[in-house]
């Protein structure tokens, strides 16, 4: 189903130090939300985490689940800035799970598991999931018409793990227009095969169809230009570190990531990709 463990390793296990060079210091590997023209990436990432935590109605006493927690930026934000006493993360990447657990953030525990198979006795009061759904459905499964069923199974699982009254702050990258020609088509093909194998970005209407009958859509915020700005900033930082990256990880690594980020910027600009944040209320 979607990206398997090996494919996720291709996407996230190049090396934590490599990603640290061009993401923000906390290694948020997803769209930031900018409040002003001159806001830094770091501040915009915190702003994004604040929006999603508000969508999830997080309080210090909520037991919070972060599905696809990456390098733990959100979990750390919850524990430190929102005084959350208990937060649990799940990631398919062992390198990420080890890294976050080694930081010993109070109240935070990360499980190295496939969320779609993960079993837990725990019940959560609030859920956050930031750009993990794009790994759930492979292009092949989408062709077979399975996308909405796969996303619905994800929402069912989240529902089953939550207490009545729970809220869910969800963020997903989206696909919208499909290019038929030109360099952008070649570049997109490169990204889906070389950088993010096994996954396919969902469409907005698929997410909206799939939340039922488990979650009620309260708010949807479209953030296409925020992601354009985020990826442009990652690209700028990658290029600033060109010499170090070429030396440490090789020319191919630098050139592949440059091509990938440059493609992202153009895809958001041309409405090929977009991003949405959702405030969802559990249907009890």
């Amino acid at each position, binding site marked *: 189903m979607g990206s398997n463990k090996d494919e996720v390793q291709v996407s996230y296990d190049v090396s934590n130090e490599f990603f640290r060079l061009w993401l923000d210091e906390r290694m948020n590997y997803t769209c930031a939300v900018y409040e002003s023209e001159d806001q830094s990436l770091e501040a915009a990432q915190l702003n994004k985490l604040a929006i999603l935590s508000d969508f999830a109605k997080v309080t210090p006493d909520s037991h919070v689940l972060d599905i696809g927690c990456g390098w733990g930026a959100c979990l750390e934000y919850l524990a430190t800035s929102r005084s959350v006493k208990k937060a649990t993360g799940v990631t398919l990447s062992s390198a990420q799970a080890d890294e976050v657990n080694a930081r010993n953030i109070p109240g935070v525990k990360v499980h190295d598991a496939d969320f779609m198979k993960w079993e837990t006795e725990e019940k959560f009061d609030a859920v956050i999931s930031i750009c993990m759904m794009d790994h759930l459905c492979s292009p092949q499964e989408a*062709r077979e018409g399975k996308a909405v069923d796969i996303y619905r199974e994800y929402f069912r699982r989240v529902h089953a793990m939550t207490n009545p009254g729970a809220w869910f702050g969800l963020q997903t990258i989206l696909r919208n227009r499909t290019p038929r020609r030109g360099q952008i*088509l070649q570049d997109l093909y490169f990204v889906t095969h070389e950088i993010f194998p096994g996954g396919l970005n969902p469409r907005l209407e698929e997410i909206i169809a799939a939340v039922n009958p488990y979650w009620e859509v309260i708010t949807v915020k479209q953030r296409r230009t925020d992601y354009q700005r985020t990826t442009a900033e990652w690209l700028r930082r990658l290029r600033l570190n060109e010499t170090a990256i070429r030396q440490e990880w090789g020319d191919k690594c630098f050139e592949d990531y440059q091509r990938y980020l440059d493609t992202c910027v153009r895809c958001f600009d041309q409405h090929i990709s977009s991003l949405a944040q959702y405030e969802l209320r559990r249907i009890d």
Partner: protein
Amino acid sequence: MSDKDLLQMFKVVAERVDKKSFADITRESVITDLGVDSLSMMQIVGEMETELDLQIPDEDLVEIVTVGDLCAKIENRMGA
């Protein structure tokens, strides 16, 4: 435009895009089995859309599995 014409058009366009022969295709042929990857497939769709002056909605593209699926999407747009 008849069934046969669309199939013929797919053949001509696919041969131009992929630079190989697609002699024995039918409406039932599975596009990936023909060795056409998603990149070539989009180019074929784009060229057929241009020639016929129509556009298949983006959300319909992912479900195209066989040559016949593509022909059907085009026929829908032509109101045929």
